[in-house]
């Protein structure tokens, strides 16, 4: 029986200023296949400890291939295990194919660097300001006569060489370092970051982010057992996350949840491990390939 239960919808909003409309969950062929074959027992509260639960499954493997959209005819697809989050140690549910253009791009450090630098610079505002001669609230009068004083001649006390005088070439007011990196470079940066994670065995694909208990220790034990590292970024296709996962991850600063639209190079590189759901992989591939191959006229 299909039993992906989401009790009491708990929204982990991706902290945007504007409201993002809910996206309907698009079930792909792979997802439907999993939902039908996948059977889990639903446990009540504190009946059984998380580690002692037994999950009933059909015989593994559940999935051995995945249909890739617009495959590259010259390069074989990359392959990855499909894991689960129901048990502490991972059960390999099957193998899936990944698009080589998205997860097998040759690495380019300069593109990654450009992306990270852009992410910082385009939102940075410098609020420094030094008052110039004209901004000072001082007398405009000549302080002493031109000749006869034995002092250096002066026309006002606001000059730069005077103490408490103005600043000629200092920072002038709040300014921004805004610029936009082209979409081509940004999507290439994403593809390279994902490829780097895949190549270094830091990318894991799971069926869904449903975990049996909201106890943060379950999540910690799971991550420690699987050697997923200090920090983990969980990516789902929508911004509505399961209850237990949200509550457990909120206890840790280094385990973070993101929807697909929030992915960026900086976050991928900051977290040691990247864990994506199958639905997220499908959506991500579709979006990145669309951006790669579309032929729209630039404004």
């Amino acid at each position, binding site marked *: 029986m299909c039993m992906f239960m989401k009790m009491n919808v708990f929204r982990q909003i*991706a*902290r*945007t*200023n*504007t409201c*993002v*409309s809910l*996206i309907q969950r698009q079930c792909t062929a792979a997802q439907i296949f999993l939902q039908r074959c996948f059977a889990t027992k639903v446990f009540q509260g504190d009946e059984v400890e998380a580690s002692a639960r037994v999950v009933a499954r059909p015989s593994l493997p559940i999935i051995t291939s995945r249909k890739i959209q617009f495959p590259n005819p010259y390069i074989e697809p990359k392959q990855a295990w499909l894991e689960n989050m129901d048990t502490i140690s991972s059960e390999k549910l099957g193998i899936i194919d990944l698009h080589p253009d998205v997860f097998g791009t040759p690495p380019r450090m300069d593109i990654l660097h450009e992306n990270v630098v852009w*992410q910082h610079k*385009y*939102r940075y*505002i410098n609020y420094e300001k030094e008052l*110039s001669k*004209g*901004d000072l*609230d001082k007398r405009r009068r000549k302080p002493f006569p031109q000749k006869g004083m034995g002092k250096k001649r002066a026309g006002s006390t606001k000059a730069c060489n005077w103490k408490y005088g103005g600043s000629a070439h200092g920072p*002038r*007011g*709040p*300014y*921004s*370092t*805004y*610029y*936009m990196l082209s*979409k081509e470079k*940004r*999507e290439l940066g*994403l593809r390279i970051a994902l490829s780097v994670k895949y190549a270094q065995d830091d990318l894991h694909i799971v069926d869904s982010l449903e975990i049996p208990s909201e106890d943060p220790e379950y999540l910690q034990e799971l991550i420690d057992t699987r050697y997923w590292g200090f*920090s983990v970024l969980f990516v789902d296709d929508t911004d509505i996350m399961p209850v237990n996962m949200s509550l457990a991850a909120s206890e*840790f*600063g*280094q385990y*973070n949840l*993101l929807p*697909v*639209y*929030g*992915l*960026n*190079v*900086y*976050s991928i590189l*900051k977290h040691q491990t990247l864990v994506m759901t199958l639905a997220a992989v499908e959506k*991500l591939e579709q*979006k*990145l390939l669309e*951006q790669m191959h579309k032929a729209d006229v630039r404004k």
Partner: protein
Amino acid sequence: MSWLTKGITYARQLFARSSSCSQCISMRCRSVGPEYKFPAPSPYKTPGPNRHGYKQNWFDGGSLPRGIPTKVHALKPYRVRKTWGATKALYGRNDNIDILGDTDLTPRDLLRAPAWLKGFNGNEMQRLIRLMGMEGHKIRQLYPTYYNQNWRRIKYLYKKYNQHRGKPITNVIGTQKVY
């Protein structure tokens, strides 16, 4: 007269701490004369010891400054940076929302900045003109001096950027010298 020929006078005097000056030691060092192998016969004398003296400006208050009423200028206390706090953990989120999202949102729409600087990058004159265009009516009421100063600054910058520029051309028939 060996005590004279040897000429060693040793006096160590610690001057009392005066309230104004710092805790310095002023020490009279050993006054030593040159050593002569053979004493000179009377009535000849050997040159005697000279009190050269040496004042060392040493702080003798201890290894650390203590009991000083003024503020101690020391390094700032170490502050642990919250690299996994709320703002820093997901820094950079939604920067590719125009590529990966389903709406018309762009990262420019999500910027948090003063209104006249959101998604705008320009030189000082451009920024000031934009500021006065967007917030000028408010500034005129609340900060009239700042309002006046801004327009004067814009005028000054316009002349600075646009006038007295370019190479002067010589050997040209006519009065216009700068193109």
